[in-house]
């Protein structure tokens, strides 16, 4: 059961820029007192650069990116360069953080915990990595995280590699790191049902952010 305090918007497969325009509208609505909203989606291959992203973390040439059909977008979130691609579940929680501790570190940790619990549902043991954000399976990164906050309303969020084509990550140095990326499909040696991942995400998110006595 999803709490009525939480609105779910599953955009399906959507261009990054369209989802971004949608996010901005929802941020305004939530800042004005509207219900907290979770936007779920998948994007065509795109590189997004956070506020302080260094262009040298893009390893491929412009031509290579063009050939692969990967666009580059600079955005207002923390973090470095990130790749979104089909098969990756992207979640943008738009929440008034005042009601959730008003603390960026606590919020990031709670988001990571949602992903860790979700992965656990699928039999994947994941956790943090010393000195790094995101969620990791050993030394392989499976979930990237990067948020923006305006008037203490959150936007952007996390990207979970479900069935992502991991070869695409070779065009960047994810988050400025020399890391191996992984996906749920890679860890489980088989394709994962995206709808099941979404359901699990909603369940875990609800548990960590909107716990109620009747829940679990």
């Amino acid at each position, binding site marked *: 059961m999803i709490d009525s305090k939480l609105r779910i918007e599953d955009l399906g497969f959507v261009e990054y820029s369209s989802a971004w325009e949608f996010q901005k509208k929802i941020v305004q609505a939530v800042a004005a007192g509207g219900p907290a909203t979770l936007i779920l989606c998948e994007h065509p291959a795109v590189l997004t650069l956070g*506020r*302080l992203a260094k262009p040298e973390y893009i390893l491929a040439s412009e031509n290579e990116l063009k050939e692969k059909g990967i666009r580059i977008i600079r955005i207002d979130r923390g973090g470095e360069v990130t790749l979104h691609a089909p098969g990756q579940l992207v979640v943008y929680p738009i929440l008034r953080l005042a009601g959730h501790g008003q603390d960026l*570190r*606590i919020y990031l940790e709670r988001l990571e915990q949602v992903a860790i619990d979700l992965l656990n549902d699928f039999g994947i043991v994941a956790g943090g990595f010393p000195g790094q954000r995101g969620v990791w399976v050993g030394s392989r990164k499976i979930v990237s995280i990067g948020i923006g906050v*305006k008037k203490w309303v959150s936007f952007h969020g996390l990207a979970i590699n479900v069935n992502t084509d991991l070869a695409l990550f070779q065009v960047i140095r994810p988050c400025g790191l020399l890391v191996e990326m992984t996906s749920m499909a890679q860890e489980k040696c088989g394709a994962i049902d995206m709808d099941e991942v979404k359901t699990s995400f909603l369940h875990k998110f609800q548990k960590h952010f909107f716990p109620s006595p009747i829940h679990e």
Partner: protein
Amino acid sequence: MNEVFLPELGEGIKKATVACWHVKPGEMVTLDEDLVEVVTDKASFCIPAPKTGRLQNILIAAGEEATIGEVLGIIGS
């Protein structure tokens, strides 16, 4: 005169880097309008203008680090 402070962002967060100013010195800014954006570990945080007025001074420029409570800029009347 009003100072624009780097607010408390969370437990254990002592510093943030100014990512960009949305307003140039000398320009007018309206109360609550996006003024300056700071970044800390994986989070970008937008600080709104604390009052309507002219942005007089930028004390911490884009790319520079500030500690919590530090004055980032000054808005004149």
